[in-house]
């Protein structure tokens, strides 16, 4: 047992931290000029009544592109990608260090994050030479922004229920259907798409889908922003009406798309830096408790408040060390053990508890989203509302419990 970094890892961290220290100052200046948003997008003030103001969104985009270029020029975009595709070929440990340092400073990782984290790695593994040559450099440079079109109104947790069809017609597939929860869909240039290509009713469900790279600017693609609980729209509904996708843009084999989509979701799951973010939020919570007075005393002296915050801190650390056990297995090339699924369940629910308690601490002020009485300009209100999605996106907490019970603990599936 040893938590130390190797000399090479230590050198990587030092180099990264030096670079970040040098560039963070300008980043913060630009960030506040553009409206003071965090890594997740435009900021809280826009919550509520009206939809996000266009000016703010433009400012955010301009800022992200600037930061992306900075990262790209320094070689910090797609560090996990192999060198031959323009990445750094970073080791798992280096990726962890990178994610940790970025999370500690609450720095955004650039534009087209879905391209770097999902689409790119999937193309690297399953794409042909032409696909790799065309798409990968454009993903890295931030030229193309990617989104994901998997879920449908009738297929969320049960993804195999997808109904969107892709029918062969000459050199193309013609795609019809509706996708939903398309994160960043309104701004995306390309999508990774899962669609049905085998209509034989006797075919096993998991062998009926193909995986496509779809141009979001194609005729027949309409994205309608889906306004979410916070009042802003991070994702959209995507309508596909006779969209022609060239056969050359199918990824992997026909009817083999299900397995590729599962590997994409693996890339998603392995990208977790949530406990570091929580530890930093807990720091803000402590600070809030110290400056909030209740019954003539700072809330930080209230025993219930102290118990709750300490419990969050313990849970975040338990999540962190469960994560380090999972990381050790990964480093040793072993298949994921119970740690991975158990850790994500713990942290997703912890995130909600923290946000809920932050609201509780504010008493009647927790209702205010802007104005002179609003605490921290409505920041907590926005993150409280968006935290309700944590136990739904990337697999609901119920599905996670089923997976833990059936795959890790070996309990039987319920069958009729």
């Amino acid at each position, binding site marked *: 047992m040893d938590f130390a970094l190797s000399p090479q890892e230590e050198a990587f961290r030092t180099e990264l931290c030096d670079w970040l220290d040098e560039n963070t100052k300008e980043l913060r200046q630009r960030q506040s000029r553009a409206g003071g948003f965090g890594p997740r997008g435009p900021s809280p003030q826009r919550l509520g009544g009206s939809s996000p103001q266009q000016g703010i969104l433009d400012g955010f985009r301009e800022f992200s592109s600037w930061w992306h270029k900075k990262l790209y020029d320094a070689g910090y975009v797609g560090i996990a990608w192999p060198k031959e595709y323009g990445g750094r070929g970073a080791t798992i440990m280096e990726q962890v260090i990178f994610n940790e340092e970025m999370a500690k400073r609450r720095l955004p990782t650039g534009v087209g994050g879905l391209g770097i984290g999902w689409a790119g790695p999937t193309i690297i593994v399953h794409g042909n030479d032409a696909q790799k040559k065309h798409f990968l450099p454009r993903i890295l440079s931030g030229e193309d922004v990617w989104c994901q079109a998997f879920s449908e109104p009738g297929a969320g947790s049960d993804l195999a229920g997808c109904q969107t069809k892709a029918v062969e017609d000459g050199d193309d597939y013609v795609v019809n259907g509706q996708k939903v929860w398309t994160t960043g869909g309104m701004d995306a240039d390309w999508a990774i798409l899962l669609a049905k290509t085998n209509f034989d009713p006797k075919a096993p469900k998991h062998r009926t889908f193909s995986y496509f790279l779809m141009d979001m600017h194609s005729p027949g693609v309409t994205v309608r922003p889906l306004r979410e609980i916070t009042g802003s729209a991070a994702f959209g509904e995507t309508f596909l009406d006779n969209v022609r996708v060239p056969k050359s843009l199918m990824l992997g084999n026909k009817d083999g798309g299900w397995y590729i989509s599962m590997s994409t979701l693996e890339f998603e799951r392995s990208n977790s830096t949530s406990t570091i973010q929580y530890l930093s939020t807990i720091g803000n919570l402590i600070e809030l408790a110290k400056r909030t007075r209740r019954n003539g005393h700072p809330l930080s002296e209230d025993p219930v408040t102290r118990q709750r915050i300490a419990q969050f801190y313990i849970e975040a650390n338990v999540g962190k*060390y469960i994560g380090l056990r999972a990381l050790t297995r990964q480093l040793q090339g072993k298949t994921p053990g119970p740690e991975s699924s158990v850790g994500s369940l713990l942290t997703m629910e912890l995130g909600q508890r923290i946000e809920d308690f932050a609201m509780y601490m504010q008493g009647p002020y927790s209702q205010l989203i802007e104005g002179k009485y609003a605490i921290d300009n409505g920041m907590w209100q926005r993150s409280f509302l968006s935290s309700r999605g944590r136990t739904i996106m990337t697999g609901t907490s119920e599905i996670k419990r089923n997976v*833990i019970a059936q795959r*890790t603990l070996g309990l039987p599936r319920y069958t009729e």
Partner: protein
Amino acid sequence: MNFELDEEQVMLKTSARDFLQQECPKKLVRAMMEDEKGYSPELWKKIADLGWLGLAFPEEYGGVGSSFLDLAVLLEECGRALLPGPFISTVVLAGRPIAACGDENQKQKFLPNIASGDMILTLAFIETSGGIEASDITVTATLSDDFFNVNGTKLFVPYAHIADYFLCVTRTKNSQDKEDGVTLLLVNAESPGIQIEPLKTMTGDKLYEVVFSNVTVPAKNVLGESDKGWPIMKRILAEGQVAESAWMTGGARWALETSIAYANMRIAFGRPIGSFQAIQHKLANVAVGVEGATAIMYYAAWAIMVNDPDVAMAASMAKSWCGETYKQATFDGIQIHGGIGYTWDHDMHLYLKRAKTSEVTFGDSDYHREMVARMLNI
């Protein structure tokens, strides 16, 4: 970066589990609940021969020279087997502090004898207040002519009836700062003026009231320095908290595995009850607790091994998390087993009772959350 047991630790774990399955069946655990001594001297001897008692003592004093982390691996298995007897009290609460802070004579006198199984020690710490702060220490020791005169009552002293020596936490000075003026004394159990009275416990663990009336203790029996015993006591507390956490982790995993096995086997409404989501989700929650307990407990044991500055924080986090996890695992274990889980014949209640005992030993979960809050400067 490697947060996994090494090969030798895995071997220690496996061999300990095999040994305890053979030598410490539930029949023995149940017999010891009723037994006056509360432990099996034959088994104690075997454990000594395996090197368990001196595992984390230096080799020059008859030990194996392994680390606290290795000891935690072993304690996890002892907790799983519900090993009855004075293992933690002798080794962790008395032997380890002597190894760390004792003088040469004390080390020579006690450590080889503990390691060989010939001497049993215990910690006389808690008093009627039930607390674990320096201000809770009121048993007095007054020095005159190279002898201390000890007076007062200690409670919840584990296995006092079989102990050869007590490591007694006394007050030797009344200062404003309660941490100043605490002295740890090694008191011969045969000394005149010591009276012990058994306390009847839920687990069948042997705990005692120990009354000291004008007990004479030579000044050379001070562990560490006079009046400056509290830092040693804090170290004992941290090691005790992590030892209990390891013990609890082992028990909680047993409760989880036993419940899974039952849920797979028990048929209701024509199918195994483990196929119902109500049961699956309960067990998934217990699994979060147990995996978390394993992770945070080993982190805390590692922190003790390397003397990390984060020791107190790690110990409090582990004790708090493991305490709640173990209790919940046995609550859910009984619930999943239904009627049979509620009976005396099923073993689950033995674990539930142990969980309640460990939960309150060296600070419960609320206490440790408050400690965490203080260390975070909230």
